[in-house]
Structure formats: C-alpha cells, structure tokens
C-alpha cells in the first residue's frame, strides 16, 4: 500500500450524459508525480474517453492546465501528488465555459 494514488475525476459529456458524475481511478506509481502526468497516464493507459487539456508550458505561465484540484484552482503541471494520496479533479469552470470532463474554455477567450 501507499504505492497507489486514488484519483476521483469529474466526468460530463453534454452530448451524451444526463448529468455529471465522478469516476475513480486507482493508479500504481513509483514516485511523486505532477497532477498532469497522472491524468495523462490515466487518459493513455486506463481510460481513453477522458478529456483534458494535456498541453502545458510546464512553468505555471500559460494557464492551459488550470483545473480544480481538491477544490482549489491550481496549475496541474506543477501540482505534485504523492503515492498514497487521494485526489479530486474537477474542471476550472462548470457549467459555464465547460466543454467536456476537465476541458473548459477560458472566459477571457470569449
């Protein structure tokens, strides 16, 4: 134990789902990793239907990866998560500017 991270992720596709729901993924990890790396791994190896903006500049500058992590808006690229932790991922904005799952459109971009 302690080598796993339990990630609970907000899911909603307005084209298909009646309402949002959460899905939990249990991911085995070797060491601490960033939230974005964790979600990228979930999308690639566990659940291809998960949508997120995987792009990041890696410097907390571009804001592409901003989302709610444990109820606070954070940069996923440099928010580190340790083995043994549980973590909650939700979109930066919902229902306004929401696209699907963790993908949103920035209000400034309208």
């Amino acid at each position, binding site marked *: 134990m302690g080598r796993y991270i339990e990630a609970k992720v907000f899911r909603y*596709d307005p084209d298909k789902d009646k309402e949002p729901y959460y899905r939990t993924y249990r991911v085995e990890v070797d060491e601490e990793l960033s939230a974005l790396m964790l979600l990228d791994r979930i999308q690639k190896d566990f659940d291809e*239907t998960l949508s997120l903006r995987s*792009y990041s500049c890696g*410097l907390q*500058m*571009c804001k*592409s990866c901003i989302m709610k992590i444990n109820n606070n808006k954070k940069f996923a690229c*440099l928010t580190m998560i340790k083995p043994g932790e549980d973590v909650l991922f939700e979109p930066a904005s919902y229902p306004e500017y929401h696209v*699907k799952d963790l993908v949103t459109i920035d209000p400034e971009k309208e």
Partner: protein
Amino acid sequence: MHNIEGDIKECDVLVIGGGGSGALACLEASQDGDLNVILVSRGPISRSGLTPTGNGGTAVSDSPEDLFTTMVKAGDYLNDQNIVWLMSNEVHNSLKKLRDLGVPVKKLAPGSACVHGVETLSIARKELRRRPNVVVFEDVMITRLIQKDGAIRGAVAWDLISGKVFIIQAKAMVLATGGMTGELYSLSSNNPFGISTDAAGTGHVMAYLAGADLIDMEMIAFVPLPSNARCKNIRFFPEFWLGPYMNRTGEIIEDDVNQYPGGSYSYQFVQKICRELDHGNGPISVDRRGIEEKYSKLPIPVWDRRRNLIKKLGIDPVENKIEISVGSHFCMGGIHIDEKMESTISGLFAAGEVMGGVHGGLRLPGKSFTQMIVFGFEAGRHAAFYARKNTKISDPFSEELAQEKEKIYCYAETKKDPISFTELKRRLQGVMDRDVFVFRDKDGLERAIQEIREIKKDISSVNVPVFKRYNLGWIRAVEFSLMVEGAEIIASSALYREESRGFHYRNDFPKRDDKNWLKHTVTRFREERLEHDTAPVVLNRMKPEV
C-alpha cells in the same frame, strides 16, 4: 465557443498555427483592414504550441554580419544565405514592431534580448480579437491543404469541440505549424514532463502531401535532457548545461561545452555523449554540487521563477546529481521557401520552425525566436501582397471534404482486430529512437523505413472511442496518420544524404563531403510516392574554405 455554420468559410489569407509565427503573420496580413484573415489554431492561443514553452532568448546581434557569419558557419553552410541575411538584417525592425504592439523586449547581454512567449501571444491575441477583419478559430485542427493547378486554394478544418469538418477557402496561406520532433521520439525537449505539446509536424506533412518541396528533413537536432521526466525543466536552468558531465565511473567527459558553437546544443557535443553511452559508460550525469552559483538573481523574472519552481520540486541541480539522456529538440529542415517565404506551391507561405533553409545543420540557441518573429511578420506581409493581386476560385471542394470526412471518421468505425493507438505510437518512437537517431547507417535506415511502412498499414486498424467533444484519442489518431509520413520523410532523407554534416551523422559516410553534398536534399510527393531530389544551397555571400 465559436459556432461554425455551413460547410465553407472564405478568406483572403488563411494562417495556420497559433504560435508566435502564426500570430505575427496574422497581425501583419490584417493590419491594413482590407483583407479578411482567418487564423486557425489547434489549441487556445498562448496556451498551445511550442512558443509558450520557450525561454524567450532571442538573438539580436548588433552586427548583422556577425549573426549571419556565426549561423552559416555553425550550420555547416547548409543554410540558404539569402534567408539568413534577411533574418540578420530584419531582426531590429521586427523587434520594433513587437515593441509598438506593446510586447516587452528586454535587452540582455550584447546581442541578445528576451521576448517572452506567453506575453507576446497574449498581447497579439487581444489585438487580433479587436480587428473586425480577423476571425480566430481556436481548438480547430487543419488536416489537409488543398492545391489546384500549382496554387494553394484552401484547407480542410476539423473543429475539435463540435466534431464538424469544413472547408476554408483562401487566396493565400501562411503555414506556421511549428516543429515536428516532439512526438516522433520518446524523449524530447518539446514536451515538458514528457507530456505531448502536439509538435507532430502535421504542417510539414500536409504541405508535402499537397505537393510542396521539403528540404533537409534529415537535419534533426538532439540535445541532452534530464532522464527523469520530472526534472525536464532543468533544461532552462542557465548554468546547469555547463556541466561538468561525468560517466558511470565518475570520469569527467566534458567540462567546457562553450568550446562548441552552440554550447550543449551542438552536434559535436551530443555525438560525444552518445559515443560514451554506446561504449557502455552510461549513465551520464551532470554534477554541480559544490559549485558556487553565479547569479543570485536572474535578469528575467520568469527565469527566476523557473529556478524557484525547480528548487521547490527538490530537483535543484546545485544540490543533486542529475542523470541525463539525449532527446529530440528541433527540425532544421522544412518547407523549401524563397526570400519571399513562398513555397514551391504558389500562394503557400511558411514561417517559423516549419520553414527550411534557416539553420542548415545546426540551430544555435536563441535563434528560433528570432526566426519566429522575423519570418512571422515577413510571411504575413508577402501573403497579403499575394492575396491582393490574385482572385479566389469559388470551388466548394466537395470531393476533398468528403474524402477527408471519410478519413477522419474511419477511426470511429468498429474494427475486427483493433490496435491500440498508444501502442502504435510507441512502436514508431521505438523505430525512430533506434535507427533514426544521432548515429545512422544504411542498414538501420532501410530497416526503419520498412517498419514505418508497416506501421502505416496498421493505422487502418486503430480504433478510437466514439464521441465528438474534445476526443483526445481521435485527435491523436488523425495526427498520427500525418506524423508517420513525417517519420518516413526523415528516415528516407537521412538515407539519401550520403555524408555527415551538422546533426546528420552517417557511420558509413563519416566525413562532410562538400564536393557532392553541399546541397539540399529535397523530398516531394509525386504520383502517390515519396521521391528525392537535390536543390542548390544559396551561397551568395560566403563559401566554405577548401
């Protein structure tokens, strides 16, 4: 969220790519207000592409002659000298245009400035949104260029949010789609933390499939990178790359990278590391513990912030020995253009990393932002000029639209023996890492081409989950079908150039051969096949010493 109605959008100038070159080309082409310009970006501008990942270092040079000479010598004379001369002479003018837009250009040491990527793009984006003659499509991907009778006519676009496929007609087009090495190799400087930044070379390949000539596609820059993904950002730590570099036994293999033209970004140094690794002396590490830090505060706030982030992550190279590997960095080859940025397809212009001829065999640090800024403006200017004197043909391109829809939608069909896309991509990266890397030879390259062709066949068995909204698996599958062509182009060009020059090293032809190979390799698509040719290098100002 943009509502895209109907199957056709029209404009005078279509700019593809939302990085620095694309944004500046769009500003330039739209500034007089008489042309309708559409900018298409795969992601939100300032939040996608490689521009925001750069550190902003921009070569300025107080003497154009110096900048020109340095670049041509470092590039092993494979640079087109008319293009380098233009860049060297135009850089001050281009930076003035940036300042006029309100972009801070901070002077650093003599000959260099910092132009921050995110800042530049945010300002450019705001300005573009103000202009009534500009339409910006974000989260839209171009999947095909349309050429008729030797001239560019439009493109097929795919809205990643609604799933809609539509046509954009244009009189002139600027292709500014950026790099191609990030996705092709398992380790790349393009991908912070090992996560894709979409540098897949789709622009190179779309231009090639539409009939444009590509040059020197074998010229891929490789650089040392931290092996551990979480340490990737150390690549911006200014002193880190000075070394010292040591091998497994603790022997120092390099402590003076500044002897090479591009420091740690030089092929001479990268080849040295790879030889050490091939001799079984890896892993290679950089150990700066105990070396006094030169700067207490870095000149640019963002750089300082970067360093603090690194310290916070517990990967400060001042306190840790950091293991390094070699990964891909930059594509020096690209679309063959003339001094008006125009490709061999009339009306198709290129700017930024997708253009060829600027760097020859080696890109020096700080020169890609200069390239992005100068040629972004230049391509926009020439495309506008072209659009003003040419008329549009109003063809609905129904056939192209239908074909492209079919191609995109085939991934969503249920397959008998479906292949995982992730697995297929790993296979391609495995081939590139093994046979199309720093050291190359005939046998390896032939084997690579064979395997790439097999991977190409397997694409038709890729299955993606079926939903329209921001479907990453689907986006990456469509991207992959272009990327795999790019892999073949690189491997095949590398086989064609039978000498060693710049970053292209052939074990079976280890010497530079100016007599036979001081020329561009050309790759073009004719009669549904890849073919090679050569083209002269523009050597109008300086010739190599005999």
